[in-house]
């Protein structure tokens, strides 16, 4: 369970979030929509622990533990995961080696390279991630779609307790979107992870079937509801939603 209470956040001394409260139960999917600059990515970064972000007020509870002062790696170890909007390229780091390292690190175990490769290949196949990608350097020269798929592959390796998808759907073609969304949904069902999905489009929500849709504007949640909120937004745009 992730509980965000009255969260106020600044970035570069600018107030971005002005009192966000949100509760996401185990296995639930919450969609977060809103115009550009409304604070969606900032919220994702605040929860995952970006050092660029300053929490000025409020708390973030993961499973009743306040994580707002924890470093990003400590939050990850507690089971938090963020699929990045712009995954970073890390030159010279073979993806296989990286994935094995984060797996062993997370589960505090050692696994033989052969065994891990088998495990990974099975996951990669489900996500239609081509096998040669696994042997390339982390995200280096990957297409936009490949990067997003690899984020979900990392999610499937780490089996997080809670995930935030930061515009994972942007830049994906329709078939890739379906594969990625189904991948997330499969992991969610397997591990009962809670999900916050940040998006501009309702298409991904068709697959992820959120329990709640929230609309963020000027650093505040201005509307919450079911899937109908997303559908309405698609028709009328954000202008019509007001606080």
């Amino acid at each position, binding site marked *: 369970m992730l509980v965000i209470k009255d969260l106020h956040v600044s970035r570069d001394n600018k107030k971005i979030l002005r009192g966000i409260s949100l509760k996401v139960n185990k296995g639930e999917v919450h969609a977060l929509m809103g115009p550009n600059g409304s604070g969606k990515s900032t919220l994702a970064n605040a929860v995952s*622990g*970006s050092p660029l972000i300053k929490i000025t007020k409020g708390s973030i509870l993961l499973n009743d533990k306040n994580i707002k002062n924890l470093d990003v*790696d400590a939050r990850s170890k507690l089971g938090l995961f963020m699929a*990045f909007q712009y995954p*970073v390229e*890390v*030159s*010279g*780091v073979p993806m296989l080696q990286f994935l094995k390292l984060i797996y062993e690190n997370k589960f505090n175990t050692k696994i033989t390279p052969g065994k891990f490769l088998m495990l990974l290949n099975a996951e990669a196949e489900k996500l239609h991630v081509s096998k040669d990608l696994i042997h390339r350097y*982390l995200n280096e020269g990957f297409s936009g779609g490949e990067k997003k798929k690899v984020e979900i592959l990392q999610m499937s390796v780490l089996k997080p307790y809670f995930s935030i998808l930061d515009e994972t759907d942007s830049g994906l073609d329709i078939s890739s979107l379906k594969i990625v969304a189904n991948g997330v949904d499969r992991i969610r069902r397997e591990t009962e992870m809670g999900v916050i999905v940040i998006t501009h489009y309702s298409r991904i929500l068709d697959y992820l079937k959120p329990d709640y849709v929230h609309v963020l504007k000027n650093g505040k949640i201005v509307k919450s509801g079911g899937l109908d909120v997303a559908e309405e937004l698609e028709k009328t745009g954000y202008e019509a939603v007001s606080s």
Partner: protein
Amino acid sequence: MSQKIKEKKKSGFMEDTAYQYGFSDPEDYVIKFKKGLSKKVVEKISKLKNEPTWMLQNRLRAYDIFLSKSMPKWGGNLDDIDFNNIYYYLKPTPKESKTWEEVPKNIKKTFDRLGIPKAEQDYLAGVKTQYDSELVYGSVKKELEDKGVIFMGTDEGLLKYPEIFKQYFGTVIPSADNKFAALNTAVWSGGSFVYVPKGVKVDLPLQAYFRINAKNIGQFERTLIIAEENSFVNYVEGCTAPVYTSDSLHSAVVEIIVKKNARVRYTTIQNWSSNVYNLVTKRAFAYENSVMEWVDGNIGSKVTMKYPSVYLMGKGAKGEVLSLAYAGDGQHQDTGGKFMHLAPNTSSKMISKSISKGSGRASYRGMVKIAKNARNSKSNVECDALLINKNSRTDTYPFIKNDNNSSKVGHEASVSKVDDEQLFYLMSRGLTKEQASALIISGFIEPIVKLLPMEYAAELNKLIELEMEGSVG
């Protein structure tokens, strides 16, 4: 290192007993000179080795040159070298060697973390000084002999193959090249002699199987490699694990002759303890359509000055230097490479990657010269520096001279820091800051590391992980 041994155990190549008894009894004579250098010392060294007169003359001439040459005014700070406070010939026995208690704690810890077997730890730390590889690696030696490959200590080589030495020794790097080449020529001892006959390809990396060998790690090693036409050899020397020595000066000379259509790759990893001045001259002559590759990794030492060079003597010859330098706190790595294009259609490539941590300083120093007659030649230099801390330092000293307009020279240099976005990304996957930094750094040096034999690469990455612990603020 440990991996290699395990591998061989599996293949049945090396039995436990062989390894256990791989250490030979100490040779029963003790030879120790007084500190300091004189004509007498040079004569004594030559006499002890039963050398032919011409080698003695050669040493004495070199000694005079050494005296007449001044210290280099560029590169690292060598002010603290005291030539009178150095042993120029030392054949230590276990009685004289250090005890385990004297070995610095941090080095012991590194050994343990790298998983180096105790026997090798003893050797590397200088507690044991003899490690006879004959018994352990005998079968590999036999295979080489059958192909006509000569691979032995340089001292032994001189006595057994005087004609080859007369023809080649000192022809690539004459004594007058620089003060330290002269010093080495005067007092050299140890090193490797490799002769690969025409058309012979040596598939396994040579030194990888012999890398623990007292005869090959010394203060004033002298290595001579001759690759005849159409031959191939990959020679690997050195050690990723820290080599602890109380000697303060390591001054080696490596000469390589690569004949028509032959290819030589020479890989070095050095990790001397931080009291050592590592001043090495390495040069290869590359003849028609031959390929010479230097892979040169410098991790340890106080000051390193080393610029492996390739003289492209025949048309179509190719030279390559891949240089990796790690300058930790208080260290200065002044490294790079040198290419002399002396024939048409020759090409050269330099890739230099350096990392500076703490007050460490890594300098790239390179020289590319394209002679008038070396038409249609090309050279490309790429040097990338990574700085870990605010007080870390890097500098670049490229020297380029192109004497004809049909040749092309390219030079690119970059300086970077460990990227915050990369750190955040990797840490968001549960890695600590140290783990994430180590990963970024190993990615940075990957283009060079991937060319190393596997066990070296694995150790190098582990070493970087250890170096990063507690160093990232």
